[in-house]
């Protein structure tokens, strides 16, 4: 949760204790619900049965500070008691350790409204479920600095992950990494063919390491680009949800995908012909020093993604006023179109945006 937001929202409910966090641009939300069974003793409400259950939020840093060193905690702590004292405005976390040592941490909290992202996994068109370890092995191929990744299911049903390259980055300078996963590596696949979704890798990695550590399968639910993607982990005593906003593309998904479809090849085979002959001819005959091509950058109207909608009753917490809620910061919502091939000077005419750079390999 600390990888998502700076504040930890605690919400005791009848069903258990819910810990939640949201990031500053409101494009990522996560909740961990611990069922009463998880605890030795769980009392949601106060002495009077009808009082509204108390919610609060604390600074993530303070809360984490209590549980700072996991190995030493495991060795010394026998019991951990978490207690809300509204009258004193304190959240008490008490660690009862060996040798009758008791460490009591009093954290200040702030009252808050209910933090809830509205999502319904049942309504999502596509879903996948995979063992966490398999997904962890998959994302290891992408650099840690990578912001966004696109999960794609091609028309044939093959599933792939690819790093997302922003449109204003020059395609001729950016390395593209793509990974194909076989259907049988997943526990369940119910995905719409020819669908894709682009989300932020950083927050996903956080959930993934938790899932790996607890050895739980991860379920992915997504819909159309722009609609949030939901990742869930399910256990008898724990339910985890991570909701991320996704990039939308202006091209409707009913259209055949553009050059992305061409560049997503099935596993490369050995027989192909390179297209470099014509390219070299172009280079020799034209006056270009280097192989620089500026693909015509498509300008599509900006689209905002649909953020995880907040609970209508919730008062929007005061975040940065100007930002559109749920917009991942500094993103332009352009299509995943990559632009085309040679500059107008060469033998090939400058393609329009609709013309696909035909794959000379003939594999697709």
């Amino acid at each position, binding site marked *: 949760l600390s990888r998502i937001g700076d504040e930890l929202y605690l919400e005791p409910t009848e069903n258990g204790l819910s810990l939640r966090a949201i990031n500053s641009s409101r494009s990522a939300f996560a909740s961990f619900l611990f069922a009463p069974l998880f605890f030795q003793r769980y009392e949601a409400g106060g002495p009077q049965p009808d009082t509204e259950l108390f919610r609060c939020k604390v600074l993530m840093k303070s809360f984490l500070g209590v549980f700072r060193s996991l190995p030493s905690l495991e060795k010394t702590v026998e019991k951990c008691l978490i207690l809300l004292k509204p009258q004193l405005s304190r959240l008490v976390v008490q660690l009862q350790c060996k040798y009758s040592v008791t460490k009591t941490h009093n954290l200040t909290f702030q009252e808050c409204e209910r933090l809830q992202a509205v999502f319904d996994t049942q309504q999502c068109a596509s879903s996948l479920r995979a063992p966490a370890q398999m997904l962890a092995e998959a994302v290891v191929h992408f650099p840690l600095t990578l912001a966004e990744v696109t999960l794609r299911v091609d028309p044939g049903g093959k599933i792939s992950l690819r790093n997302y390259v922003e449109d204003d980055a020059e395609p001729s300078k950016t390395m593209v990494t793509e990974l194909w996963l076989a259907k049988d590596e997943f526990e369940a696949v119910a995905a719409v063919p020819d669908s894709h979704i682009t989300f932020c890798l950083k927050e996903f990695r956080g959930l993934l390491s938790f899932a790996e550590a607890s050895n739980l399968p991860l379920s992915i639910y997504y819909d159309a680009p722009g609609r949030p993607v939901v990742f869930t982990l399910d256990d008898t005593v724990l339910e985890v949800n991570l909701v991320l906003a996704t990039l939308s593309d202006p091209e409707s998904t009913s259209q055949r995908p553009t050059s992305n479809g061409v560049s997503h090849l099935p596993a490369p085979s050995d027989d192909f012909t390179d297209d*470099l002959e014509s390219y070299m001819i172009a280079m020799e005959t034209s006056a270009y020093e280097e192989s620089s091509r500026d693909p015509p950058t498509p300008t599509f109207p900006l689209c905002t993604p649909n953020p995880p909608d907040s609970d209508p009753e919730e008062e929007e917490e005061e975040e940065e006023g100007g930002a559109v809620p749920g917009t991942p910061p500094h993103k332009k919502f352009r299509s995943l179109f990559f632009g085309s091939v040679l500059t107008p000077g060469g033998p090939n005419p400058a393609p329009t945006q609709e013309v696909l750079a035909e794959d000379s390999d003939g594999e697709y």
Partner: protein
Amino acid sequence: MRFRAKIVDLACLNHFSRVINTIAKLARICTLRLTVSKLYFILSDKVANGGVGMWCELNQGNFFDEFQMEGVAAEHNEIYLELVPENLSRALKTAQNAKAVKMKLTNKHCPCLRVAVELPSLSSSSRIVTHDIPVGVIPRRLWNDFKEPSVPDFDVSIYLPVLKTMKSIVERMKNLSNSIMIEANLNGEMNLKVETDLVCVTTHFKDLGNPSWALEDGCQSSQDRDPETMAEARIDIRKLQQLLAGQQVNPTKALCNIVSKRIVHFILLHEDVSLQYFIPALT
């Protein structure tokens, strides 16, 4: 113009990755020259690089199980590409236990070196990761810029001390100054010297040994030289540190040639890779 290569043997793959990692540490962008029998990583000593030059040569047969190359034309059966070695290094990083790694030159949206890594997986089919590394194709008329640099007319040639030792010394000296003085003589002595206003630190190495070079005209240029006289050059310490830090394996032979006040030419030889690195003297 085509290029296709495949590595299946894990040891070769790891060895190749190590070479690429070393190159990546030395140059942000460099030229890859492919011939039928060899690969070359070249950094030409342009002012933009700070005058540093690099020439790394590999025998393709020692690394690749399959290697097919067709150059630009029959009489010029070579390919020159410009690439960012860090990209290649990253692509190979997670291929540690791959079943096979294939490389090929493609031109879909732009010329790319496509590295396809086939990884073992629990399912029936292997997992395939592809990395499309954008490359620049260098036209034939510019090939002259990338000729192999000739061995300079050096004053002293000497074997280097154990690289690990040299590296840790240079790293510490880096904190003191931006330039380091290398001096060596034909008696197998070398000094590394750093000087600031407050302090002067010198490390002395002895008994390093001097390689003998047979020149084309059959005589050794340094025969008349007094063995005690030091040839010296002051170079940018960061470049030296980069070179030493990039070495992941101990070379079979490591030596340097010093042209007094002009340039230091480092030669690091492994079984199947040779690396030459030129660091100009600071004016």
